[in-house]
């Protein structure tokens, strides 16, 4: 289970947020819901990122089936295990990032009586899809206005976009300094920077990133470790996969998942709904839109540019985004280029740590 201390701090914080008359919107944590619009509406986007433990996966299985990805099952399970926190959520945003999100959000809304506001993503990224995405964001904005009872002005939206871009710029600076100084921060430390955003929002995250940046200048690089890139499914709060990896002597220098700093390497270029649509539809590392080979090309380029020694590809069992993509294309493209890689699959409710440790040990021995 997640540390009680951490949860109770978050509960206190969310209560403070609510005292400011902010509406708390629960959103799936994959990073494709445009938080800027929620922020502009005076809402607080709270990423449903607590997961990773066996109990909530099993509990979630009572709502969904065991073949739903264990992240989705955990997410719904948390609503039972953390009622104190989750009762603060006023509405949830129902996206269609993946099968898990579609099923989980609908069941959360139904069984926990939380109103939902939907947003639909297209499956491709052509011109028609972009036009649809723009209209869909406009529609989302209107739904939020109706829910909150107040209009979102152009200035509010613009301010929100600038704020989120400022956070992304700080993230990019951390990534840059990391590279320059030989990656002094571990993968876990980097991920914690993002967790701040997931639980406390953009403003707290900016403050935290500023502090970390100044501290980073004094840190020295890690020695005697195997530098690896981490890609695939994200690591929600409570999933110890990065601990297992780094305890085995690996050092995650790049994390391309939605829980990694490297996911946030682009900015919203145009300060408008259109700019947001372009940004989210082209989020290459999300793996959401089909028929794009950029994901694989980017992964190989990141590997080459960062002088990493291998790639660890993480899959949450029954994830509908990554498995079929990687089985055919990724393995081929990494094998062709003789890039050492390890594929790890995990089901929070089932896969024991020992099994993952054995896989990691075998991968490490490949280098020795």
């Amino acid at each position, binding site marked *: 289970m997640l540390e009680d201390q951490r949860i109770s701090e978050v509960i206190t914080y969310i209560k403070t947020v609510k005292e400011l008359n902010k509406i708390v919107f629960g959103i799936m944590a994959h990073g494709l819901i445009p938080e800027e619009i929620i922020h502009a509406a005076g809402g607080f986007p709270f990423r449903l990122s607590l997961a990773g433990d066996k109990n909530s996966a099993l509990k979630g299985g009572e709502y969904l089936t065991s073949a739903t*990805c264990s992240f989705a099952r955990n997410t719904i399970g948390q609503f039972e295990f953390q009622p104190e926190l989750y009762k603060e959520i006023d509405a949830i945003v129902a996206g269609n990032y993946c099968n*898990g999100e579609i099923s989980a959000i609908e*069941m959360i809304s139904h069984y926990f009586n939380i109103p939902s506001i939907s947003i639909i993503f*297209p499956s491709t990224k052509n011109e*028609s899809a972009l036009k*649809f995405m723009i209209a869909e964001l406009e529609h989302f904005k209107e739904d939020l206005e109706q829910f909150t009872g107040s209009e979102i002005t152009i200035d509010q939206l613009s301010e929100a976009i600038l704020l989120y871009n400022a956070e992304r710029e700080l993230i990019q600076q951390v990534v840059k300094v990391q590279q320059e100084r030989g990656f002094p921060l571990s993968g876990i430390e980097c991920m914690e920077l993002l967790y701040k955003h997931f639980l406390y929002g953009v403003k707290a995250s900016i403050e935290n990133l500023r502090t970390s940046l100044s501290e980073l200048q004094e840190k020295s690089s890690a020695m005697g470790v195997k530098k690896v890139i981490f890609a695939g499914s994200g690591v929600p709060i409570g999933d110890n996969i990065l601990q297992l990896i780094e305890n085995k002597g690996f050092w995650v220098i790049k994390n391309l998942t939605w829980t990694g700093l490297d996911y946030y390497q682009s900015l919203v270029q145009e300060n408008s709904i259109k700019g947001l649509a372009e940004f989210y539809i082209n989020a290459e590392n999300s793996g959401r839109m*089909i*028929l794009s080979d950029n994901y694989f090309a980017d992964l190989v380029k990141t590997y080459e540019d960062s002088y990493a020694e291998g790639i660890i590809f993480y899959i949450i069992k029954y994830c*509908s985004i990554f498995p079929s993509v990687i089985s055919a294309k990724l393995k081929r493209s990494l094998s062709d280029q003789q890039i050492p890689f390890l594929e790890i699959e995990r089901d929070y409710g089932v896969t024991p740590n020992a099994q993952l440790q054995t896989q990691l040990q075998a991968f490490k021995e490949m280098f020795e």
Partner: protein
Amino acid sequence: MSVDMEEFLIPSFLNLNLQFFSAQKQIRKFRRSNRQLVGTILPLGAELVFAAGASPIFPLRIGKKGFEAEKLLRGTRLATNILGTNLTSSIFGSTLVQPQAENIINQFLSEYNKNLCEYESNADNFNYLPDVCFATRIAYGSALTYQDVVKLFLAWGTRCIWFSQLYGTINNSIPIAFTDIPKSISAHAKEYMYEELQQLIKRLENLTGNTVTDDLIREYTVIANDIKAKYRDVLYHLKTPEKMPLSPYAYMQLLALLNICIIDFLSAMKYFQKNLAALVQELNSRKQIDYATTPKLLLVPVFSGSEPTLPQIVNDLGGCLIQADYLAYSMLDPVKTEGDMIQNYGEYLLNSHACWSSTKTIVESWIHTAQELKVDGVIFNRLIGCTTITPAQRLFKEMISETGLPSIDIDFNRIGENVAQLKNKVASFIELLKKE
């Protein structure tokens, strides 16, 4: 449960069965006439393929080396043509009639099942993921088996992201025409759908070199609408549940046949239309069979895969298995034929998608269908590995219990797995229904 030979000698029924097994012959014919084949695994878009002067093909219908059942059916049709239905039956003699009829139908099912098994193992051989849903495994296995024959594959973006990713993987071997169906019926979704269909039509035109006009789409849509209406007619015999025009075994086989044939219209739309019309007419004029003691069970969901021997199991236990997914998802609804046909087709796609785009809607669709068809019970087919529809299980149980309709759930993962357990579960359910 007994099988009446005469039912299988209905010429139109025989023709449809025969055409089902003739895919290899059709492919040779299409090759000779330079007609392009477009792969499809969902009952969507075949009208547009015909309008482009190509032929849709459901790869699961293709037997690798031809079917034994085809020879048997051809022989039977020849005998029927020469001697007539009554004489053929009497020549076989009363003792030979039943084994012969069962032989035909068993061969149909067993050869189709053999096909499924082969594609399932092909998917394994092509290194497709073993623990994903049956539907995508056999879709992948069958599509890649015929990658030299199929020049383009129809791919649809639906609520099932897994399916979208499957198409992305097929695209490594066969070019796909991906058409997104947004999970919405808003005005901007209609506009997006329209543009997506325009893109699809362009791809089909490039493939065949023909121009797809609105009139051509209308022409094939009218035929498709008629076929769908006849399919509904076949299902709607259940509305008078005590009397049916076919024995349970023959009726189940007919539903299974239509469930598959509607995907590519047997690659011969007009032939399909003609024979189905004749069959429906025949069914309407036949002497009715008493179904008072035959429990009718609706299986949901079907189109993501189910144990292929289940109809046989239910029949042996004295029941009748009903497959009506396409009715539930409004896929048998007519497409409007007045005005802009691309717009009409787009609206049809959005509306049918809306019937299964949310868990609650899909459960409501199943329950509505069960009530409309007046079935005695519902079997929930829990497909292991399905991350889209199977998660509806809990809601389904709750909502169906409110209707008072009895239901059970069964598991399905791979063909032939846990069949004994399945038989026991279904037997207890049928027993219970018979007592009621």
